[in-house]
């Protein structure tokens, strides 16, 4: 890919090294802790599923009962810690399969009521369950790769990404099919308003949501099947996206990995800043969820675009770049290769700014050059969209232009009705037609255009990079947690011990046992204790990325 801005390689390296220094102490904390949802994600990969008559999911029943009986159970001091050991033990005791055990648990059986039996048997059985669970994930990854290989070159470039958000999974399917038939490559099912604050993942197909649809494993399955059918018809792989965010980040990642989702919104700080979730909780959860995503070959999307809804996009452009660097480092630490990191950014400057278009072009080109192997998720104008839908359509057209002109990877289509309601079917149609028109007509634009040497575009990018380095220095001095608590990101302040989900954090003791974590780490080549329970390595992590060379 041709570079056009003449950005200093030294400065880019400096920014990366600052970011790496900033995340290091946070990673130490992360590795010493687990959370209730990490435990539940582990259980899910090992086969725990279902819900009781009140809709409480089996993984929650297990973890809640264990904690209620003895808060130290999950830690693992004198006895083996972690929820999985008890699940496996119960499985051996009851003598049936996981489906049978799940049913019993849903009917009131408590896995913690059994004394732990022969440890070697538990370890063997645990390894077997992990092999089965991660085996499914691996099979999904291979199926995705195979289909992408078969239909190579049939997706748009950048990938056209569309949102469905009716609240009812069956309506979502109709909307998604329509969008995919018109040309969308990626369908994201937006989650319902309340879900990120639920400390459980609802069970089964759902038809009631506000501003989005519940992420449930059954809903994933339904949408996956529908998109696969459209894909076969169109000979184009249709990517399915959901949100590994909120209080159940790792569980949603696990469910997505099991049901072959292809992308996950998965930011390291979004939950803290925009959902008021405790920062320690989020940091621990994001790493486990990212390890799962990486193992599953799922492309993550980060949420830097959101900063620009509470901060000014021109003034605070450097916070976006700084966050991209941080997300990147957290990503590498969780085993994500660059090609699976859809780092986020957005076109959110006030449309009245003189030369605003050039600044947007500069920002997008800068991200492209600094993160040259990352797919980059580019988000449309939202904040300044208004009831003037015709102006809105013009803004979206400019956005389509910038995206193609700077070779972005994942292009979230703007909706002319953004300020009014979640998209109608025709809004998506208009958006896809607009993007196809713009992008087709400027197919080779990237290679044709260069920027004036000392011009506005080049200078702006240099300025933002310099500001970013300064900002990263400041964060480094304070420490990331203090930086967040003093409002350095998105102008939102979050106290370290505030927010939701703090009570769900558990310190790992010496005897904490999590063979899923061990297998993920081994498969991803990450440092960690314990031996590899998985049959083979995930180092090849699928060719599913949309990286740009």
């Amino acid at each position, binding site marked *: 890919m041709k570079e056009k801005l003449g950005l200093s390689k030294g400065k880019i390296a400096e920014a990366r090294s600052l970011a790496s220094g900033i995340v290091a102490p946070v990673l130490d904390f992360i590795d010493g802790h687990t959370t209730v949802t990490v435990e539940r994600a582990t259980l899910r990969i090992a086969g725990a599923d279902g819900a009781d008559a009140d809709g409480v999911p089996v993984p929650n029943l297990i973890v809640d009962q264990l904690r209620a009986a003895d808060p130290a159970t999950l830690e693992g001091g004198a006895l083996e810690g972690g929820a999985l050991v008890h699940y496996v033990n119960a499985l051996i005791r009851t003598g049936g399969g996981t489906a049978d055990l799940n049913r019993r648990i849903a009917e009131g059986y408590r896995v913690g009521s059994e004394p732990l039996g022969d440890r070697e048997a538990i370890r063997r059985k645990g390894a077997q369950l992990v092999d089965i669970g991660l085996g499914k994930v691996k099979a999904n990854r291979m199926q995705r790769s195979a289909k992408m290989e078969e239909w190579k070159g049939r997706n748009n470039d950048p990938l056209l990404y569309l949102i469905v958000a009716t609240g009812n999974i069956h309506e979502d399917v109709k909307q998604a*099919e*329509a969008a995919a*038939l018109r040309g969308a490559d990626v369908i994201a099912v937006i989650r319902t308003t309340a879900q990120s604050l639920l400390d459980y993942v609802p069970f089964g197909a759902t038809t009631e949501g*506000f501003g989005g649809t519940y992420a449930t494993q059954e809903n994933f399955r339904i949408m996956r099947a529908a998109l696969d059918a459209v894909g076969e018809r169109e000979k184009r792989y249709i990517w399915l996206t959901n949100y590994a965010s909120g209080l159940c980040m790792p569980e949603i990642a696990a469910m997505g990995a099991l049901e072959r989702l292809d992308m996950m919104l998965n930011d390291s700080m979004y939950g803290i800043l925009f959902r*008021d979730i405790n920062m320690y909780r989020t940091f621990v959860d994001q790493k486990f969820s990212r390890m799962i995503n990486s193992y599953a070959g799922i492309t993550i999307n980060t949420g830097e675009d959101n900063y620009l809804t509470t901060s000014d996009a021109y003034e605070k452009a450097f916070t976006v770049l700084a966050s991209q660097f941080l997300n990147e480092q957290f990503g590498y630490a969780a085993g994500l290769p660059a090609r699976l990191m859809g780092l986020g950014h957005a076109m959110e400057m006030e449309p009245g700014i003189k030369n605003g278009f050039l600044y947007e072009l500069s920002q997008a080109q800068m991200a492209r050059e600094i993160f040259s192997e990352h797919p980059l998720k580019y988000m449309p104008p939202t904040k300044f969209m208004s009831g003037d839908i015709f102006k809105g359509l013009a803004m979206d057209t400019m956005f389509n232009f910038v995206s193609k002109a700077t070779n972005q990877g994942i292009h979230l289509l703007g909706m002319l009705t953004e300020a009014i309601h979640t998209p109608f079917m*025709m809004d998506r149609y208009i958006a896809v*037609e607009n993007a196809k028109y713009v992008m087709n007509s400027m197919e080779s634009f990237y290679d044709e255009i260069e920027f004036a040497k000392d011009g506005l575009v080049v200078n702006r990018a240099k300025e933002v990079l310099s500001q970013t380095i300064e900002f990263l220095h400041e964060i480094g001095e304070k420490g990331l947690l203090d930086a967040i608590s003093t409002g350095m990101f998105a102008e939102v302040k979050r106290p370290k011990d505030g927010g939701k989900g703090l009570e769900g954090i558990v310190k790992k003791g010496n005897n904490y046992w999590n063979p899923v974590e061990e297998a993920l780490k081994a498969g991803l080549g990450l440092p960690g204790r314990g031996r590899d329970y998985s049959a083979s390595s995930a180092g090849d992590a699928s060719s599913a990325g949309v990286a740009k060379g």
Partner: protein
Amino acid sequence: MANIVRPYGDTLDDGKVQLSFTLPVPDGPKGREAARLLVLSWGFKECEVVNSAAVSDDFTFYVAYGKTEIGVDYEAARADTASEDASMGMDETCAFVKERFGRKVVIVGACTGFDAHTVGIDAIMNMKGYNHHYGLERYSMLEAHNLGAQIPNERLIEFAEKVNADAILISQVVTQKDVHVQNLVNFIELLEAKGERGRFICIAGGPRISNKLAVEIGYDAGFGKGCYADHVATFVVKKLAEKARE
């Protein structure tokens, strides 16, 4: 005197209206004719379907022009302007409060329920305000508490009781399936159950909120798009003075 007006295309009273909509039918001549008949059934005298496009196998998007003869009496239209008054700026409001009440007026605000949108309530309350209009926190004679987003109704009421608030501001941005109405109504019901509705001035705000809607469901006023702290402050202090007189 009546002043009947009609849509204007390029000639007075030509009655031209632009429409676009989707029907759950496949694209084709039959669908276009159905679309045309549908538009005529809405009272249009003429209709031309100028574009149809398949959105999927079973859905089609239409653009149509209609011509209407129906007019409306402009003079008879009554705008709801209860929340349009921004006559008192920051200094005036503060002077008014000092003189009338001799104490700070206490205002509590939040975006309630599961709604996580803070930008709207911040625009009204935060120091820096919005579009060069300072927020309530900057008013020296107001004691403004912004609790942020995702605040349960119960907690908001508790807090308002604790600081002995004069007015409660509620922001609701997510409106799908009328979740905002349910949430706003629930708040009033909770207050009424406690016998405290009269204790506070209650104000709802958000991009899809109108004064009409807010008043209908039991609020003193509602504020929508384009409103600033000036509007809210003016309303609150005038209303408070009115209450004091009663």
